[in-house]
């Protein structure tokens, strides 16, 4: 397996949606290719970091504003 072929399967590897046979091929490539191993590990870490740190937090007061807008809309007939 070449690095390009490995890269084409990177998402499937990360999402754990590869067949057992394909996983064995991918792992065999990983054992001999430091670059692909780094790419896989750091891509996994990228996802994990974004998942565990919530950027763009909702400003306080926005929920209340929305609630009032919905209630106002409701008074017009809901």
């Amino acid at each position, binding site marked *: 397996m070449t690095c390009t072929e490995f890269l084409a399967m990177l*998402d499937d590897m990360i999402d754990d949606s590869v067949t057992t046979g394909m996983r064995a091929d991918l792992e065999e490539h990983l054992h001999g290719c430091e670059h692909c191993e780094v790419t896989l590990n750091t891509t996994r*870490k990228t996802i994990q970091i974004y998942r565990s740190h919530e*950027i763009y937090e909702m400003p306080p007061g926005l929920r209340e504003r*929305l609630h009032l807008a919905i209630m106002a809309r409701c008074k017009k007939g809901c």
Partner: protein
Amino acid sequence: MATIQSIAGENEQHPDVALVERVRNGDVSAFDTLVRKYERQIFRIAQHITQNREDAEDVMQDAFLKAYEKLDQFQGNSKFYTWLVRIAVNESLMRLRRRRTGKMVSIDEDVETEEGSVPRDLADWAPDPEQNYTQTELHRILEKTIKGLPPGFKVVFELRDVQGLSTEDTAEALGLSIPAVKSRLLRARLQLRERLTRYFRKKNSPAAVGTADLGVEK
């Protein structure tokens, strides 16, 4: 972070469907429950697309109001959240077009970029690299890094990887084909990885790209 859609069997009713039914029968508090459940996610999607806090606030409000008004049009065969995302994405794009004085902005625009299709910076990361930054610095890094991606990439990454939607639900919510979602996701992941390497590389790794410019001194 918990994923959005709980896994329900084919014959099992999604809890949102029951909430929608209650709203349709005049129970506004059920809509409040839906708002509380999805407000943060909708706000983030709006912020990713508009890149403007005020616009994102307005989009969130308009999207929920529109969903409330058009609830009769919601078909039970699609998931409430994917339907809501679609409304929010359209509202965000409209807002963006207005800001860009009518210039077409589309989520399904396929941006061909050299960057990110092949990893170039192959430096390994430090163990637990986020520990080297304060929370505020880390937030700035993550925000700055994702900001540079095309809107379609950011939203696909947000829905698939941060919110945990399936490829199929992401495609439905964004009106994209499944191969288009997959292609954007791979490129988004690789571009983010490449850009984060600037900040997270091991100390003795050679710099393959320009020095990180964040005003974050390390």
